[in-house]
């Protein structure tokens, strides 16, 4: 079974990862790059700003947010990220790393989804896979984004470890709740499922520090939330349907 799941998840992850990278290149990526121009040029937070790094923004008074090629290069030369460690150069190299990360993420999610699907008594196929995919979308995108919406670079946020803990707990609780609703018919299961799905939001996500404004305009932030959510939905629909199809073909017992 282990082999079937892995042999199914790897091609599914590669296909989904490539498809989603193409979607991101026209969807989320331009918004992230635009937000980074605000992040680099915007009101520098004193303790994090390396003066040398931000001088390029001051040196180009006609700072065009449309980011033409020359600006992109200057931006790149100054080191785009947070001034710490290596980062892929903007353009082709950055896209390659994004593709790699998308493929790995898709393989990881497909491994989990296919494994869960194989544990149930459902007939494998694209349709059961699709429904599992929608369950995945609800668990790792919709539920966590209620408390921690997708953010553009330069958004204020609470401490990273606290947010990661809340994110993981919310995803697991929501998935468990959906699983209970789908697999058990008893009333107690439904009650427990509702509690599991609601609890993380009653506890509440770690909030960003008060009074700190995001660097990117609200309109850009809103658009990013919409595009990221839709892209994620397509990701999960594709990942689920493909996982169901591949598992059906590769499963020893099918």
């Amino acid at each position, binding site marked *: 079974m282990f082999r079937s799941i892995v042999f199914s998840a790897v091609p599914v992850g590669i296909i989904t990862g490539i498809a989603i990278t193409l979607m991101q290149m026209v969807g989320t990526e331009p918004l992230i790059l635009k937000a980074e121009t605000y992040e680099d040029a915007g009101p520098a937070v004193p303790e994090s700003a390396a003066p040398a790094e931000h001088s390029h923004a001051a040196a180009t008074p006609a700072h065009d947010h449309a980011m033409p090629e020359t600006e992109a290069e200057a931006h790149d030369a100054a080191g785009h990220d947070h001034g710490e460690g290596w980062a892929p150069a903007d353009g082709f190299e950055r896209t390659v790393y994004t593709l790699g990360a998308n493929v790995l993420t898709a393989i990881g999610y497909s491994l989990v989804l296919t494994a869960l699907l194989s544990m149930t008594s459902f007939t494998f196929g694209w349709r059961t896979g699709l429904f599992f995919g929608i369950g995945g979308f609800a668990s790792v995108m919709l539920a966590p984004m209620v408390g921690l919406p997708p*953010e553009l670079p330069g958004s204020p946020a609470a401490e990273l470890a606290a947010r990661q803990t809340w994110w993981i707990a919310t995803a697991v609780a929501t998935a468990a709740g959906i699983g209970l609703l789908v697999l058990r018919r008893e009333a107690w299961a439904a009650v427990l499922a509702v509690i599991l799905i609601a609890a993380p939001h009653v506890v509440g996500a770690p909030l960003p520090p008060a009074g700190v404004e995001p660097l990117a305009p609200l309109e850009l932030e809103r658009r990013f939330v919409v595009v990221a959510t839709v892209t994620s939905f397509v990701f999960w629909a594709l990942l689920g349907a493909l996982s169901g199809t591949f598992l059906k073909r590769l499963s020893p017992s099918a």
Partner: protein
Amino acid sequence: MQNQTAEKAAKPAVTSKTSNLVQSAMAACLGVFVIGFVGFSHLEVVHNAAHDVRHANAFPCH
């Protein structure tokens, strides 16, 4: 899913079912490990490489 622990009889069918469950669980753990590495690692290099994917997936970032 069916936690019939009472069914301890060493029937081959049951054994293969348990083995399948264990193997599925191992595959799921492998998947969680991969996602954790790409999306949640605190290593600066991993963060920077997967930066845009983390933002797009609403993984907590920075």
